[in-house]
């Protein structure tokens, strides 16, 4: 029953996105122009980017993209339609569907960002499958921890500034782990060194999804 609801709601989000493409295209342009501005401001044609800087810059671009993309998830639908959903489906279905949809969106944006980044700035990654795994976990992690925060921020008066203030400290531990994981992938270290980080990222994701699942019903009543 819950699964059916979630699948239906995710489908609805995809259809909405497909009909009004400006949101997705906007995010795409955001990623592209941010990468290009980084390229210009580091004037990379003459000197290569060092690996730690490359890594940190990639995740910071992705973090800002995620905050911008996910903060829309509860504000883009109008009040009437939200009330209509609330009478049809359970709150747990809504939050799980939003997390799933945001994870898919962030995965696409993360991969495209990696593509632009590799083409324009250069690609020092030695273990590409491992780097793709870290993008996958990053997309999932951003989606899980930012979706509930965007629900909180959407209720407040000045939601776009609040979104950043509320989400940065919450996402910090995950971001540190992700940077470590992708740094190992760039340096092409043996994969067994990453087991700790993989386990912790998975555990943080599970904990955050469980808390969102429990807490969201209290949020949507208002």
């Amino acid at each position, binding site marked *: 029953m819950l699964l059916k609801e979630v699948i239906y709601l995710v489908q609805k989000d995809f259809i909405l996105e497909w009909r009004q493409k400006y949101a997705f295209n906007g995010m795409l342009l955001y990623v592209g122009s941010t990468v290009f501005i980084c390229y210009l401001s580091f004037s990379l044609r003459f000197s290569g980017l060092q690996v730690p800087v490359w890594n940190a810059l990639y995740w910071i671009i992705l973090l800002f993209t995620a905050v911008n993309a996910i903060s829309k998830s509860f504000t883009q639908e109008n009040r009437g339609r939200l009330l209509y959903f609330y009478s049809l489906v359970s709150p747990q279905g809504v939050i799980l569907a939003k997390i799933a949809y945001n994870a898919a969106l962030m995965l696409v944006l993360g991969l495209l960002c990696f593509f632009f980044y590799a083409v324009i700035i250069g690609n020092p990654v030695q273990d590409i499958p491992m780097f793709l795994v870290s993008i996958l976990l990053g997309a999932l992690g951003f989606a899980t921890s930012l979706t509930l925060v965007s629900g*909180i921020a959407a209720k407040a008066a000045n939601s776009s500034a609040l979104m950043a*203030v509320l989400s940065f*400290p919450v996402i910090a*531990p995950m971001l540190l782990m992700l940077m470590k994981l992708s740094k190992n992938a760039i340096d092409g270290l043996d994969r067994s060194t990453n087991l700790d980080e993989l386990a912790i990222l998975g555990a943080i994701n599970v*904990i955050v999804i469980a808390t*969102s699942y429990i807490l969201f019903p209290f949020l949507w*009543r*208002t």
Partner: protein
Amino acid sequence: MKVEDSKIQISKIRTFEHRKIENTKMKNWWKFVTVALLLYSVTMGFLGEVPRLAILNESIRNLYFHVPMWFGMLAILAVSVVYSIKYLNNPTLRNDIIAKEAANVGILYGILGLLTGMVWARFTWGAWWVNDPKLNGAAIGMLIYFAYLVLRSSFAEQQQRARISAVYNIFAFVTLVPLLFILPRLTDSLHPGNGGNPGFGAYDLDSNMRLIFYPAVLGWIGLGIWILNLRVRLENLKFRFYENA
């Protein structure tokens, strides 16, 4: 006749008040314990015998002040989260006030912990701030609770503010736990007991420091709860005053 009546009335009131005072005296035993523990741990902390070690020297006494701040902060923030959960189950003004004031006292303890730690770091590690997972975790934890206060101030309506900030409080505490407990154990840290460094037990061979350290922890937690108690009573009075004004 009337005079006698009023006398009885007065004596009744007196016995009632007397009983009330007796009650509060019985209820306040833990405040005396707190004062005793703090007096003991502060005097013994400054005057007692400590192990003589290179680099640490006399600064080892900061163990009695710096570490209890973090224990106190975690205890008070745990109180805050418990009352946020209570608020979601049972939305009363009291639960909300306690959750908020506990977050305030937790921030106070966090700032004191950072300050005592910075002084200690200056004299043992050579810098006010070093890139250490525990320091960064503490700083991010402070950011979370500042964000909580900013979130609270962005709602005008009391019930909405209380419910939404309770949701954020619980969510933030859940993400704070891996930050403070798991990450420092994975990476290198300058703190004792992390990243291959020996724990404080190794410096404290005769366990004399424990005799002062544990009372200090209990005393500072007690003081935090006392501050919390006073602030909650003040907020309650303020609310009643403005409600009836």
